Every structure is written in C-alpha cells, then in structure tokens.
C-alpha cells in the first residue's frame, strides 16, 4: 500500500485513534481491559470518536455488525486480550459467514511475553485465523498505521468480512511517526470488480432465450451498496422475470414489487420454491446456493441452466455446478447487463414467460403464508404482521435473533429498501439481535429500531439492555414469547417423535420487571385484543422498551422444506407433516 508520510512522532495508542478517524470511523464498540489500557487512555483524551461500552465483547461485534449492515460503513470493535478476544470469536464468525465488514482491534500481552502463557494471553491470531477474512499481529509500531489502513481496506473491499488487528501492549506505548491512508493499493489483495464482458453478453443471450426464468438474489446485492439494489430492481423490471430473494437479500427488491415471489428456501414461500424447482433458467445474483436455499442438491432445479454472478470466485461452482459463472461486483455486472440489454433491444420470450407467470400465479393462490387467528391466543405471525402494519408510516429497521420468530419476521415483515433488515443468516447466532439493534440505532439515531426476538434467544445477550439504557438508545425488544426454543421443538416434532429434549424455556424472567430494573419500559400482551395497543405504546415510547408478547406456544413455522427434501416436497402446514415423513438421509442433516 502506498502511504502519505507525516512526521510527528506519537504513541501506538494515539496512532490507533488517528488511523480510525482517518478511516472515517465515528463509533467504536468495545470493552476495556489490561492489554488495551493505553488505547483507552488515548480514547479518553480525544473527542472525534464515540465509544460505546457493551456488557460483553460478543455484544460489541454484533453491534458493529448491525452498524455496518445498516450504514454500509465498516463496524469497529475494540477489546482486550485473552477473554476479550475469545468472546469476540462468535461475532467474528458471524461476520465472516454473512460478509459483514468489521475491524476488530484486540489488545495483546507485550511482545516479549507472547508465547509464555502470560495473564490474559491467548493466541488471538491463531484462534481467529479461520473466522476472519484476514488478521494481523503487529510486532512493530512503525507498521501499526499501515496495518490498520490495510485492515480497513481488506474488510470493506471485495467480499466484505471481519479483520482482526492484534496489538501488543508495548506497541501501544512505543512512539513513531504516523502515516495516513494515502492511496490504497494492496500488493496482493485485488478483488475482481469488473465482470468478463463476453460472459455478460452470454448471460444476456441466455436470459432473452429463457422460457421459465427465475432471478434468485442474495445478500451480496445489499453488501455491494444501495446502487446494486437499484440496478437489481431495474433489471427485474426490465426482464419481468419472477424474482425471489434469500434471507440475507430481503430488501434488495421492494417486497411490494409484483415480480417478487417472497423468500426462497427452507421457510420460503410455496411459489418461490416451486418456481426455483421448475425454472429453465436460474439467474443467481450475489447469493451462494446455501443448503438452506437449495434443499436436496441432486433434486435442485433439475431442468435449469444456471448463471451465477458473485464477487467471490470460491462461491461459484462450490455447492452447485453452474453453466455460466461471472466473477465481479454485482453493481458493476448488472450495470453492464442492463446496458447490453437496452443497446441490443433485448426482450424475454413474452409468450412463454406469460405462461410461466400463469403457472406461478396458480401457486401464489395457495397463499402459503396464511395462518389462522385465534380469539384467545396471539399468533406469532399475527404479532409480526401487526408490527409491520402499524409501523408502515415510519422508517423501521428490524433485527432478529435466531429461530422461528426470525423466519416469521422474514415472511411477514416486508422490506421495501436494502439495509433495513439485519439478521444472522449463515452462522445463525442466537443473541445477535439486541446488540445488532444497538449498532443500528447508533447509525440511525432518529429511526425506529426493533429487535424481533424469541424469549430463548434474547437471554443469550440480555446484558446488552444496560448498554441501550446507558446511551439512551430507544431500541425496542419485541419478544415473541412461546416459552419454547421453538425451532428446536419444531424439529423435535418432525424428526424425534415430539420428545422435547431441553427445548423449553423454564425459569424465564418477568420481562416487564426486567425492563424496569434496567430503567427501560416493560409492556406485555397476552390476548389478541391487547396486541395493537402494546405495539402502539412501544413505538411511541421514547425509551428502550421490552414488549413481551405471549403467543400461541404450539404454533410452528410453515412452509417448510424438511432437510434432505427437494423444493417441490415443501410442507405447507402440520397436516402435510404427517403425510411426508423425513427421509433417513434428511435426519442427519442440520
């Protein structure tokens, strides 16, 4: 990397501050400790950076992820050595799986003690090597500034991801001149941004010839930036092709667009999954053929040619062999595709595509997300649907935990814009939603930020309520409380004879009192007629709120493609479950 030189000598800790400011950072999520004290002292002496004290380092990384996903900027974490670093590991893995740009600074014992099992020492770079995009151990203060700038470049460019910079304490004290970011030109890391023109032309040809096309968009569209979502929407409109999105891709195409079939995959809609199964051309745009999307691989879209556009060459031909792979940034590739489509006045086979839509409209009529309401019990889907309907006039950001509530949120909350939906997709980390909501709120101070949670997941990072209250962040916790680890229970019903081994929520706190004890506001709804009032009070309260929504404990999440099944073996409801038992091959899958 080329650097611009400045000469004033400063301490390593001051270099960290200056480098963060020069990288455009305004908020850092962290927790102090012995090995980062010099950095915390430098933090104390400046005003450019805001530090948010989390209550456990895992929360810091998820908060940085929420901040990054909702703003498009790099999220920054500062933690100490040893347990500080190991607590960050789950968040780092989460960020790696979901391609979230995060720079995590970890303190380390002084260089002369490394390897001696010193107090709060761990092999941070060794532990985080497989769960980061890249990591560094800085052994020389002269290299600190350069390494930090490089870390930001690696985290945000190409397929984004988490980067760890491990900084021993003596490096934080030592003095040397600072170097600025300059022109970033990495000597080895140069991701391919522009797609191969010939392949893009070929893709246009294939799309124009398709009779039953499906566009399958993923989280990479969101990661590429708002321009990619605009181009994606334009591309969908231009071709008129039925379009589905992955869990991570929700918002890349407005949910209100008539071409949107809903989410694809294990808990995706009937029409999206059947369209994927029966299409003759699948255009995969910045998604990665995850097992939650494909179902049984040998029965995945058996009659389809496949085009795959992705910035990461390893995603192409990893799980599913494709006919045409295009490596490049999705915005770049889409722009070219749209350009060629217009210049050559291309059109899809209108008659064939109209017939295809007719078939899809038949599937749509099944209304696979429908649910029955009840006079006495609140249905979880109903709670989320009402939350959506009652917040339509506001700018809303939704985060989730992991489980049934997450899938219901994905199904029933409809996203019109990118970067408004933050969920742990790849790793499936329970405890993600609350700290992520804190990060989102810091990036969007005036907006309504709601963590749609489950009562089991929320217990995993419940301590972060204190963080929200301390910084007066009016984050809303909307707990879909069914007193079960619902998704675990649903699988136990499907696969293990309904033996609910350890999947119930015993000894739950009184969430209303819990909220009050932290200085937040607690609300509860137990009957359907209380639901709207609680939601209205929640969104109108200018404080952190925990809304405990007691829902029907028995409700399961449908549609569902059981593991080891194909898209066209989708279960629409509990009555289907009995008819189609899960195969032995499917049992061993996760």
């Amino acid at each position, binding site marked *: 990397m080329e650097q611009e030189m400045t000469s004033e000598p400063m301490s390593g800790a001051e270099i960290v501050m200056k480098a963060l400011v020069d990288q455009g950072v305004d908020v850092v999520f962290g927790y102090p400790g012995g090995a980062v004290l010099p950095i915390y002292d430098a933090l104390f002496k400046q005003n450019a950076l805001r530090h948010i004290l989390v209550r456990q380092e895992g929360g810091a990384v998820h908060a940085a992820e929420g901040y990054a996903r909702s703003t498009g900027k790099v999220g920054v974490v500062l933690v100490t050595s040893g347990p500080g670093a190991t607590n960050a590991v789950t968040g780092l893995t989460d960020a790696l799986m979901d391609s979230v740009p995060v720079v995590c600074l970890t303190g380390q014992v002084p260089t002369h003690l490394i390897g001696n099992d010193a107090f709060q020492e761990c092999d941070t*770079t*060794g532990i985080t*090597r*497989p769960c980061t*995009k*890249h990591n560094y*151990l800085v052994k020389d203060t002269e290299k600190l500034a350069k390494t930090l700038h490089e870390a930001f470049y*690696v985290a945000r460019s190409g397929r984004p991801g988490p980067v760890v910079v491990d900084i021993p304490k003596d490096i934080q004290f030592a003095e040397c001149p600072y170097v600025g970011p300059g022109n970033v030109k*990495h*000597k*080895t*890391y140069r991701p391919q941004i522009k797609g191969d023109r010939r392949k893009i032309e070929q893709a246009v040809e294939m799309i124009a010839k398709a009779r039953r096309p499906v566009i399958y968009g993923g989280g990479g569209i969101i990661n590429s930036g708002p321009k990619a979502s605009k181009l994606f929407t334009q591309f969908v409109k231009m071709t008129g092709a039925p379009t589905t999105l992955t869990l991570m891709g929700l918002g890349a195409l407005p949910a209100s667009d008539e071409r949107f079939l809903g989410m694809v995959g294990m808990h995706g809609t009937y029409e999206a999954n059947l369209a994927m199964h029966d299409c003759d051309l699948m255009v995969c745009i910045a998604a990665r053929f995850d097992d939650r999307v494909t179902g049984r691989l040998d029965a995945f879209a058996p009659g389809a040619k496949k085009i795959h556009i992705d910035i*990461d*060459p*390893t995603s*192409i*031909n*990893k799980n599913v*062999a494709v006919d045409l792979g295009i490596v490049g940034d999705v915005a770049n590739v889409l722009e070219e595709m749209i350009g060629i489509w217009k210049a050559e006045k291309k059109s899809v086979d209108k008659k064939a595509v109209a017939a295809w839509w007719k078939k899809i409209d038949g599937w749509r009529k099944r209304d696979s997300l429908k649910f029955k309401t009840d006079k006495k019990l609140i249905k979880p889907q109903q709670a989320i649907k009402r939350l959506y309907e009652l917040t339509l006039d506001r700018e809303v950001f939704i985060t989730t935990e992991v489980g049934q509530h997450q899938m219901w949120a994905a199904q029933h909350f409809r996203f019109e814009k990118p970067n408004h939906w933050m969920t742990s997709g790849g790793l499936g980390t329970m405890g993600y939603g609350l700290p992520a909501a804190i990060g989102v709120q810091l990036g969007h101070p005036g907006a309504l930020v709601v963590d749609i949670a489950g009562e089991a997941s929320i217990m995993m990072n419940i301590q972060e309520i204190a963080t929200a209250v301390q910084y007066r962040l009016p984050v809303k916790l909307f707990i879909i409380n069914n007193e079960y680890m619902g998704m675990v229970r649903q699988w136990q019903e499907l696969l293990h004879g309904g033996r609910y081994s350890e999947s119930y929520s015993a000894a739950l706190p009184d969430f209303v009192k819990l909220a009050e004890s932290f200085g937040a506001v607690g609300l509860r709804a137990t009957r359907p007629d209380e639901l709207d009032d609680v939601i209205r009070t929640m969104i109108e309260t200018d404080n952190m709120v925990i809304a405990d929504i007691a829902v029907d404990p028995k409700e399961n999440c449908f549609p569902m493609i059981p593991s080891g099944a194909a898209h066209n073996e989708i279960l629409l409801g509990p009555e289907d479950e009995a008819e189609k038992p899960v195969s032995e091959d499917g049992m061993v899958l996760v």
Partner: protein
Amino acid sequence: MRDIERHTIAVLVDNEPGVLARVIGLFSGRGYNIESLTVSAVSKDEALSRITIVTTGTPMIIEQIKAQLDRLVPIHSVHDLTISGAHIEREVALVKVVANGAERRESLRIADIFGATVADTTIESFIFSLTGKPEKLDAFIELMRALGKTEIARSGIVGIARGAKAL
C-alpha cells in the same frame, strides 16, 4: 468417488508468519487432501515463499482449492502445474539401510542402478540420497525395505513448469 484427479499446485506467498498456517488450516478446515506440501523462501530478498502442494479431488474440488487459495490475502498467485502443461516434479529421499553381508552389497548395487549417492556409511549401514520423481523414490525405497531395517526421510515434492516462461 469418481473423477478423482491428482494436481500439483505452486503457490507464491508473502514470506510472513502465519502464511503456512493459513494454507494448512484452509485444507484441514474444508476437508481437502494434502498428499505433499513443501515450502521455502525463493526470492532474493526472501520476501516471497513458494509452497508446492500435491492434492487430490474431483475437478470441482480442485477448482475450489485453487479459488480458496487465491482468496487468502497474503497470496500472490496460484499455479496449477498439472493443467498448465508439461512440468518437472522432483523429490529428495534420504534412505538409511541397516544390513550386513549380501544384503548390504545388494543395497549398494541397487543404489548404483538408481543413481543414488552414498551420503553416510558405517560398517553396518548406509544412508543413500536419491533425487527424482516420487514414483522412482517409491520403487527404490520398496527395494531397500526388502534388504534390512530402514529409516526414510522424504522432502515432499517441488515442481516447476517447463519452458522459458518464469513466474
């Protein structure tokens, strides 16, 4: 499994701590095979190292391995010697044979046939040094095993493409 291929891949990397761990971690973490792996600094300033990996897998897996290697930040370039045309592969073996009498004399005769050199000797042992293709080393070692107690050290494979083009 069908279509298992054996590929020799040369990887140019920054000579910095942790690079080898990244490469090895990639193979173990994703369940790829390593038949042989060698590494040494190769540039004049020692800034670059060359890792030669021999691996096996289906064509789809081999493509994955190369893409995964290429994605690692400190990696400069990845070259599949097996598909890029004719290339040379060499390996060094040091073979200690403990034997007396006729077996001892036979080991020396076979070493001569293979072009192995004697690197060390005692009254009851030889250490032979042999350089060549891995299959040649295999054949030599198999013969030596029949003649007495053996101890084997092998370097692992290094490879380079034929012709005037240099990386």
